[in-house]
């Protein structure tokens, strides 16, 4: 991963590029899904780009993140390759999980991305585990868990935070409060008004930041990372944000109105950051348009490459799934190879 220094002009342009890449990737994924070209479900990150990019900008390259079912943005923010992500969405062999994970399981351990996850609230325990590993090995890496407002009501999330807090582990818990847990508004899910109040139960700092402002998220995570790396334990950050798309593609969204969405689009993270950079002279309007066109083409190319790529061989259907050999799977794979595999 290329580390962004968002305090420099180059870093700010790169942060803008990553936010635009996320939006282009997920906007394309929506089109592909509605055209029936993608298998499985997709949950899109459009609107929340400042959280992922702001947070990852504050991390070091060998730090870890855990993700959610809405993970494309986290992947791109951490520096993963959109070509290999798109291949994974299409179920192709050159995807990050050899085409067997799909949208909700993209992972790249070498890049510090410990996986998107279809189970709500499954990321924080993984982050606590990664933080414990770092602590036991005496490393200086930090693990950051992205999770949603719905996950805050899940038991394992609290177990993870409690353990990390009790053991002063180098973890950061970042809840992306996008205002809805599936179809339920956040105020109907939780008895606290700010989810960051949850931190008080664990005797760790908790605070809320504007998740539509990449610089606010960056600063918050930077301070939390420093605290974690200094051995002072985890921090709980709530980033208030909004997803422009439904919970999943195809969601009819009866739980909100167009006016609700418009209020948040009025504070769009990409548009406001672009405006600030243009005002500061960091980028011109023409350079922004050029960057956007370049990214749109990059994503179109990723789709083309993904479509042209091969599916995994059926004989490998059960490979890459278990750490230890499973005799029944070995037998199955041998049989498939002997048969020459299924005709696709």
């Amino acid at each position, binding site marked *: 991963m290329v580390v962004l220094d968002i305090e420099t002009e180059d870093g700010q342009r790169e942060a803008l590029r990553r936010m635009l890449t996320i939006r282009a990737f997920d906007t394309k994924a929506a089109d592909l899904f509605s055209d029936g070209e993608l298998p499985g479900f997709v949950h899109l990150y459009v609107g929340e780009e400042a959280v992922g990019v702001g947070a990852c900008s504050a991390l070091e390259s060998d730090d870890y993140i855990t993700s959610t079912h809405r993970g494309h943005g986290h992947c791109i923010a951490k520096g993963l390759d959109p070509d290999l992500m798109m291949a994974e969405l299409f179920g192709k062999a050159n995807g990050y999980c050899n085409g067997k994970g799909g949208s909700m399981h993209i992972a790249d351990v070498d890049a510090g991305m410990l996986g998107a996850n279809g189970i709500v609230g499954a990321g924080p325990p993984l982050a606590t585990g990664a933080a414990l590993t770092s602590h036991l090995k005496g490393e200086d890496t930090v693990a950051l868990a992205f999770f949603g407002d719905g996950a805050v009501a899940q038991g394992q999330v609290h177990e993870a935070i409690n353990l990390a807090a009790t053991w002063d582990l180098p973890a950061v818990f970042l809840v992306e409060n996008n205002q809805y847990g599936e179809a339920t508004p956040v105020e109907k899910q939780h008895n606290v*008004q700010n989810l960051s*109040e949850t931190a*008080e139960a664990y005797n760790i700092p*908790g605070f809320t*930041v504007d998740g539509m402002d990449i610089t606010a998220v*960056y*600063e918050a995570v930077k*301070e*939390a990372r420093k605290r974690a790396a200094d051995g002072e334990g985890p921090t709980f950050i709530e980033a208030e944000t909004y997803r422009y798309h439904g919970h999943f593609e195809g969601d009819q969204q009866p739980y909100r109105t167009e006016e609700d969405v418009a209020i948040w689009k009025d504070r769009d993270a990409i548009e406001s950051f672009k405006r600030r950079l243009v005002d500061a*002279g960091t980028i011109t309007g023409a350079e922004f348009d050029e960057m956007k066109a370049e990214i749109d083409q990059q994503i179109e190319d990723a789709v083309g490459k993904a479509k042209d790529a091969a599916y995994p061989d059926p004989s490998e259907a059960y490979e890459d799934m278990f750490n230890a050999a499973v005799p029944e799977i070995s037998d199955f794979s041998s049989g498939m190879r002997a048969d020459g595999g299924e005709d696709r």
Partner: protein
Amino acid sequence: MTTAIGLVVNPAAGRDIRRLTGGASVSNNYAKRRTAGCVLAGLTLVDDVDVLVMPDSTGLADRIVDDAPDDLGVEFVDMTVTASGRDSRAAAAHFADHADAVVVLGGDGTTRDVAQTIGDVPVVSISTGTNNVVPTPVDGTVAGAAAGLVGSGAVPAAEATTRHGTVEVDVVRSEETTVIRGLATVGVLDRPFVGTRAILDPSDIVGGVVSRSSPAEIGLSGIAGGLVTHRPDDPGGVGFRLSRDGESGATAPATRVKAITVPGNLSTVDVAEHRVLDDGEDYAFEVDRGVISVDGEREHEVRDGTVRLRPVSDGPRLVDVESVLERAADEGRFRLG
């Protein structure tokens, strides 16, 4: 005649990053809800009160209304909720025409937002934010009682309020001027962006103008207060410029000042220059790259601009809670026989 009291409870106040970077205390929304409940109870000191409550997106206002005493008429202001400072300004604009007094639960930022549009309506400001200068940590019941007494006219507003000063700012960049208004303090910081809004590092402070100063206050007004005391209702204000990296930038040597810049942080700063300013007198900074802070929060990014600050005596009318209640007691309003 019915007395109309406006109520602004900012669910975001007291939740920012200073809980991590400084010693700021947590102000959770359960505490705000309880305080708001106390305000409503205090308002029952006077008869025939209607309360207009600012709605929010968190459910906090819903709970406050649900918990309200039966003998108060309580309803929401009809407004669009944006989950930002715009809500406090919109509610205050409504109260300017429809309320006899307003109670604000929040910090300096919330009080400033209300002050922008509240006009002459008396304001009782209760601290639930971070290292506040303007709002006071007063019991909600006491504050509610005072608001009721002033709003109903039982204690004349003219005798129970003071006019707080403000700081007006022109940010001039080539062909355009942006106007900003602060309540107690406006600062110029050497930071690249607004970010988490809080002033994280005192060494970022370049200078500023305050409409009040006292060593008992935290932040920019505390720095100026180490040199000169300026009451909130005194005309004018204080401008100062810090010496950075050992350079005074002025003809006189820097004055070293101890000040509480954020909770838990007693800093030493070198003041290159300070000046008591008349009402409307400009104090300017040339800024290559920086941020304007308003009432303790970074608000506006500046690149290659001139920042002109001036104190202006046209702020909100703040209710002196203690003197209101003492005046009411002197007039026998607490005696039943």
